[in-house]
């Protein structure tokens, strides 16, 4: 009489290593903290310079923006703030959508809208910062109304 044979419990060796799924959500979690730390400095600095120093919010006009973006320092500052804040914010809204939108289709539509808004806003803002002209002239070669005083002096 043949001895009863038992099959090996697993046909493949048990894998102790982590699954091979992507670590997307872990990197997303980490990005929120790293970008958040940088944004605290960028955004509070932005608010302080624009709302507290000088004339505060009453001083905001084209000339104020032109004065800031005449300097590469503020161009880089605002560019970094634009990209980090938009990705940080979009990723946060993505989390909120995943939490509350229950139907698959609702989630897909809402997250697509967020992605479109993200790409549109980042591309638009980046173009504006890089193509900004502090002293624009009209077709007649004269400065447009509202240019800052440093253009004409």
């Amino acid at each position, binding site marked *: 009489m043949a001895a009863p044979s038992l099959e090996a419990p697993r046909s493949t060796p048990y894998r102790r290593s982590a699954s091979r799924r992507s670590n997307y959500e872990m990197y997303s979690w980490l990005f929120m903290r790293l970008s*958040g730390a940088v944004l605290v400095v960028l955004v*509070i600095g932005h608010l302080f310079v624009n709302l507290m120093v000088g004339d505060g919010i*009453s001083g905001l*006009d084209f000339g104020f923006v032109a004065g800031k973006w005449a300097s590469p320092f503020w161009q880089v500052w605002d560019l970094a703030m634009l990209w980090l804040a938009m990705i940080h*914010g979009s990723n946060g809204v993505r989390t909120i959508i995943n939490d509350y939108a229950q139907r698959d289709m609702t989630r897909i539509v809402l997250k697509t809208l967020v992605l479109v808004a993200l790409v549109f806003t980042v591309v638009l803002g980046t173009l*504006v910062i890089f193509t900004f002209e502090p002293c624009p002239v009209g077709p007649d070669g004269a400065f447009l109304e509202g*240019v800052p005083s440093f253009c004409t002096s």
Partner: protein
Amino acid sequence: MATETSTRSVVPQGTLYRGREGMWSWVAHRITGLLIFVFLLVHVLDTSLVRVAPEAYNAVIETYKNPVVGLGEAGLVGAVLFHAFNGIRVMLVDFWSQGPRFHRQMLWAVGALWVLLMVPFLVRHLSNVFGG
């Protein structure tokens, strides 16, 4: 086997998280974050008018210079400051070994820091908005 007589109350006793500092700071973080995101979209759009014409930008900014928008701006700065300081608190809870232990005290620190910065800002901003 002896039957156990339950002396526990049927009224839920609450938890460490629900209805307490942890939950409410999470709720406030979400609401302020969503608010800031929506504002950011508008803010980039209106600032982009500097690329159209100085007058176009100035015209839109001029429509913002009224008490209603001024109060909205104050609320927005309040939301940004809470989100920033509570975000630092979240990082400390996640990365600092003593963070989870002191998360409640850190929320009070967030509130104190918020008041400390909001008072001088409101004096400055509201005198601009209402001072003409």
